[in-house]
C-alpha cells in the first residue's frame, strides 16, 4: 500500500467575512469586528452571508433556481476551491476527481409550513389536511433543493466533478469524516485528487429550530466565543458560509506544478458517549496524538460556542500552553458540517503564510511565536463527534 503525502492545493471560502482566501486572511488579520444580524431572527443572532454574485461560480440561472441557499453556498464555494487550485477549467482533472461532501439538508418552505400549522389549529382531519396542503402548495423541485446528496449533485452538474460523489451526513462529524476519508484514500493510493467540504445556511428559521429543540442557541446577542458561559441560551451563534478544499497526493500536485498550502499530516477523530466519557480528556487525547511529534505552533479551534462542550474543549486546549489558540466561531459563527473544513482551511492558510492572525478574543487567546509551520484544527461537535487535524508546512 502507498503512503502518499496529502497536500491542500485549493481553498474555497465564503462567510459573513467575505469571499475567497485573501478576504478571509485579511479579515482575520485586520481584527475587524464580526458581522452579525441580531434582528431578523430575534432573539437569535446569526452571522449573515456576505453579498454574493452567484453568477461568478454558477453561471446558469436555471441551476441557481434548483438549489436552496445551502446548496448554492456549497456549489459556489466548491467552484472557488477548484479555481484556487487551478483545476476549474481542466475537464479531465475534474472528470477524474473524487468528491466527499459533508451535508445537512432542510431549509423547508416557511410559507407552506406556516399555512399547515395554522390549518392544524382549526381542523380535526389533520392527515387529510396535510395531504391537501402538501400536494397543492409544495414546489415540486424543492425536494431536490433540500436533499442532502444534491449539493454534491449540483457540484457535478455545475463544475463537472464526476470521478465519484459521496455525501456524508451527521452534523460536525460529517465534516471530520469527509476530510478523514478523502485523506485516507489519497494517502493509500485509492485516489489521487479530491474535492471535499461543506456549507451551511444560518439564515433560515428551520435551521435555527434544529438547534433550538435542544436549547443550543445563544439568545442574548453576540459575545466573544470563550466568554459565553453566563449568556442566555446555549451559547451557539451560527454563521452562513462554506469551505471546500482540493486535496492531492504531493506527487500529483507536483507533476502539475500546483501551489501547495500545507500537508495534512493526520486526522484524529473519535465519537465518545458524552453521557459517560469525559470530553475534556478526549479532546486532550486527540490533540496530544496530533502533537506527538512536536507541539503545534497554532491551534485553530472550531469550538461551536455550545456552553459545556466549548468549556470542555477550552480546558483541554489550556493544557497545551505552548500552542497559540484561535477560536474562529467568535468571528464568523458556527458552520456545523462545514466547520471542520473551515478550520482546516484556516490552519493551512496560517501554515502557508507562516504566521498566525492576531487573537480573536484577546482576553482568552495569547499572541505567540512569530512563525508557524505546524497547526492543528479542531471541531468538537455540539452534540457528538470529535476531530483534530494536523497541518504541516511542505
Amino acid at each position, binding site marked *: 500500500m502507498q503512503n502518499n503525502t496529502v497536500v491542500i492545493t485549493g481553498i474555497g471560502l465564503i462567510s459573513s467575512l467575505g469571499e475567497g482566501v485573501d478576504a478571509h486572511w485579511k479579515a482575520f488579520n485586520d481584527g475587524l469586528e464580526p458581522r452579525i444580524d441580531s434582528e431578523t431572527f430575534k432573539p437569535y443572532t446569526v452571522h449573515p452571508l456576505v453579498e454574493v454574485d452567484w453568477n461568478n461560480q454558477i453561471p446558469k440561472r436555471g441551476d441557481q433556481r434548483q438549489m436552496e441557499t445551502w446548496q448554492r453556498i456549497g456549489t459556489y464555494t466548491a467552484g472557488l476551491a477548484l479555481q484556487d487550485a487551478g483545476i476549474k477549467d481542466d475537464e479531465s482533472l475534474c472528470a477524474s476527481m473524487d468528491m466527499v461532501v459533508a451535508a445537512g439538508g432542510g431549509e423547508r418552505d416557511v410559507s407552506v409550513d406556516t399555512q399547515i400549522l395554522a390549518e392544524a389549529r382549526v381542523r380535526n382531519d389533520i392527515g387529510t389536511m396535510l395531504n391537501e396542503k402538501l*400536494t397543492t402548495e409544495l414546489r415540486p423541485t424543492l425536494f*431536490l433543493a433540500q436533499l442532502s446528496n444534491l449539493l454534491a449533485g449540483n457540484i457535478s452538474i455545475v463544475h463537472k466533478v464526476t470521478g465519484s460523489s459521496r455525501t456524508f451526513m451527521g452534523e460536525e462529524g460529517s465534516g471530520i469524516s469527509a476530510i478523514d476519508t478523502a485523506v485516507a484514500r489519497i494517502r493509500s493510493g485509492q485516489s489521487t485528487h479530491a474535492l471535499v467540504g461543506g456549507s451551511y445556511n444560518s439564515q433560515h428559521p428551520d435551521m435555527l429550530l434544529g438547534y433550538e429543540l435542544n436549547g443550543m442557541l445563544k439568545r442574548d446577542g453576540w459575545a466573544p466565543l470563550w466568554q459565553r458561559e453566563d449568556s442566555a441560551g446555549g451559547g451557539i451563534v451560527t454563521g452562513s458560509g462554506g469551505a471546500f478544499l482540493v486535496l492531492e497526493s504531493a506527487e500529483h500536485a507536483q507533476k502539475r506544478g500546483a501551489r501547495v498550502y500545507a500537508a495534512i499530516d493526520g486526522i484524529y477523530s473519535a465519537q465518545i458517549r458524552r453521557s459517560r466519557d469525559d470530553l475534556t480528556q478526549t479532546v486532550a487525547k486527540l490533540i496530544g496524538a496530533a502533537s506527538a511529534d512536536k507541539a503545534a505552533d497554532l491551534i485553530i479551534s472550531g469550538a461551536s460556542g455550545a456552553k459545556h462542550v466549548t468549556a470542555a474543549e477550552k480546558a483541554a486546549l489550556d493544557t497545551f500552553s505552548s500552542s497559540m489558540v484561535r477560536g474562529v466561531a467568535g468571528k464568523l459563527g458556527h458552520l456545523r458540517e462545514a466547520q471542520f473544513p473551515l478550520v482546516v482551511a484556516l490552519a493551512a492558510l496560517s501554515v502557508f503564510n507562516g504566521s498566525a492572525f492576531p487573537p480573536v478574543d484577546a482576553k482568552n487567546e495569547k499572541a505567540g511565536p512569530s512563525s508557524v509551520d505546524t497547526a492543528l484544527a479542531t471541531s468538537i461537535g455540539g452534540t457528538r463527534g470529535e476531530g483534530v487535524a494536523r497541518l504541516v508546512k511542505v
Partner: protein
Amino acid sequence: MSKYTDHFGRPLVAITGLGVVSSLGQGKEENWAALTSGTSGIHTITRFALDNLRTQIAGTVDFLEESTKGASTLSQKLASLAAEEAVAQAGFPVDDFGGPLFLAAPPVELEWRNRFALDALVKSEGEPGYDLLLAACRRGPQVDMFNTAEFGYIAEVLADKFGTRGLPITLSTACASGATAIQLGVEAIRRGESDRVLSIGTDGSVSAEALIRFSLLSALSTHNEPAHKAAKPFSKDRDGFVMAEGSGAMVMESLESAVARGANILGIMRGCGEKADDFHRTRSKPDGSPAIGAVRASLEDAGIEEDAIDYINAHGTSTPENDKMEYLALSTVFGDRISSLPVSSNKSMIGHTLTAAGAIEAVFSVLTIQTGTIPPTINYDNPDPAIVMDVVPNVKREASVSSVLSSSFGFGGQNTCLVMTAEPN
C-alpha cells in the same frame, strides 16, 4: 496475488454476516422464502391518510412497534435488527463488534406530529409559525424531538449498541446509499484500517410528505389496484417506482482474518465502482456513460471480465427512465450476451427501499450465490420490447451463480456498482 490478496495485491474482502428486514419480513429466512416464491410486499398504505394522494401504495414495514413512531425511530430499529442478524451470523459479540460502522440512512427532518406538538405548547401566544415554534423550544429542551432530527443520532445509537469503533460514518448517495456504505467498508479493509467492518443501509422514511415529494417529481407508480402489481420493472407499462422500507446489513472482513478465526465465509466482496453523472438532477446522461462507467469500474476493481458475471441484481426501479437507461448501460457493457444473462429486480417484490436498497440487494445477491436460486422479476406480463433481457420472468430459477453484479443508481447523478463472488475455495 496470494491466497488472501486480489489482482492489485490488496486484501480480499470476505462477507461473513448478512442481515435483512423488508416488507416481506424480518430476517434472511423469511425474506428469502418470500422473495424466491415471487411474493410482493407492496400493499395499500395504512400508516397515514390517503386522501388526495395519487399514489396510495408502498412497501412499508408495518410489523414493528416502531412502524408508527416516525422515520428516525423506524430507520434506527430496522438497522438495528439487520445488524443484529449480521453480527450474530459472523460470530462477533453483538455488543462489542470492534470495527467501524458505515451507515446509509435517510435524511430525516422533524416530523409533522412534533411540529404540531410544539405549536400546541404555545398556541395561546400568537400566530402559528417558526417564531412560535422557536418560542416553544425556549420553554425547555425537547431532547427526543431533537434526536429524531439529528443526522448523526442513529449512527450514535447503533455504535453504542454494537460496540463499533471510532467516529461512525453516516452517508447518503440517494438510491445508491446502501452500496456506498458497503464500498466505504471495503475501502477501509483494503487500507488495513480494520480487519472487520459493519455496513448498513436502512430506510424507514415513508411518510405522507416523503411520498408527496416523490410524487410531485412524477417518480412513483400510481398503479394502486392491485398493489402487488404496481412494481413492474422492465415492463412496457411500468409507471414509476414504489416507495418501500427495510434494511440490509453486512459484516465484512479481510479474508485472511476471517479464515484465521475460522469464520464461515459467505462470499467475497470483490469490487466496487462508481461514477457521478453531471447531466441533470434526476435524469441520466442520454448516452448512459456514467452508469456504464460505474459498471466497468466495478468489474475492473474486481479484476474480472464481463463474461465472468453469472447474474445481475439490477437496480430495476420500474420507472420508465431508470429501466431504459439501465438496459442501455448493461447492453453496452455486456454486448449481445445481455439477452441471455439473467438480470432480475428485487424491487418488483420489495419495492424501492431507497437508502437501504443497495445494501438489501447486496444481501440478496450473496444469498443467490449461496443457494443457487435466482429470485425472479415479478409482474413481468407485458415485456418492454425495447429491453431485450432475460429478466427471470415471474418465477425463480435454479442456477449455479458464482459472481453477481449489483447496480445502484440515484438522483443527483449517483451510480455505484458492486461485484460479489463465491468464496474462492
